[in-house]
């Protein structure tokens, strides 16, 4: 399936949960937040939320800023 992750077009194989996507990026247990098609995916639903083709995913972290 085709996904846009943090603005980058990627082809990944289904089924893929948000939790599995984070794990593949070594982000499990890190302080990150995930948005799918403009809506927050709460941490409690990362495991059950399956991605589908065309999804726009944003994964963010806190960085230095003023």
């Amino acid at each position, binding site marked *: 399936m085709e996904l846009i992750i943090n603005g980058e077009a990627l082809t990944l194989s289904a089924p893929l949960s948000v939790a599995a996507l984070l794990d593949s990026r070594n982000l499990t247990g890190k302080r990150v937040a995930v948005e799918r098609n403009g809506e927050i995916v709460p941490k409690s639903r990362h495991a059950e939320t399956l991605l589908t083709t065309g999804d726009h995913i944003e994964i963010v972290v*806190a960085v230095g800023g003023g």
Partner: protein
Amino acid sequence: MNQALNQISTTVAAPVVADPLVIAGRAYGSRLLVGTGKYKDFSQTRAAIDASGAEIVTVAIRRTNIGQEPGQPSLLDVLPPDQFTILPNTAGCFTADDAVRTLRLARELLEGHALVKLEVLGDSLTLFPNMPETLKAADILVKDGFSVMVYCADDPIQARMLEDIGCVAIMPLASLIGSGMGILNPWNLQLIIDQAKVPVLVDAGVGTASDAAIAMELGCDGVLMNTAIAAAQDPVRMAGAMKKAVEAGREAWLAGRMPKKFYSAVPSSPSGGLIGAK
């Protein structure tokens, strides 16, 4: 005020301070808020923040780096949310929609944390706020349960609109973000301070310690800065200077300065008893 203080002492575990800055019902001992950007490394970030005495620190929200080194420390490891009040910002957002999305992500990231700094920029050259978009975003965020501290133009009418929407702190610029030009329009700041019923903080433009002291002497409730510390030759030392400046300015404001008197010089020493007097 007594009622407010009673409420604080019963609901906040933090130590009781003589002259607290109260934002969204929580009392803070420091009136200096600092950003975490532009430092050499995390070690310098932490040392400067410790020297500043700040309890509220701003962070930005950005996409994770693809291929980031696992195990690399993150900012929130250096500044743990149980030690600091983390204030996520919307720096870099040019629309209300982007700002709202960014802060919803921040709330998820910080496990339900409601206190945020809203800034919607209008122009990448000046980073001047886009006030129509700022007002729109503030309205959405307040209705969504956020406690919104808002970066804004030094326009008393729009400051009042933001307060009416329900923002918990009004944060006008003193001069452009990152410019270090200091307090360019103290008269407008004074108008905003005089009318506001929520804390007013100068956000942006402070360049050195005297600028922070002037902001506090005008009656600001606090000052938020980043570049003035991070871009100093010795950021940690400047952080300490800013702490003292904010405290000195606050004390001076509480003390009430002497009136300015042009053409009426009165000596501080006795005029009589001079040697050689006839």
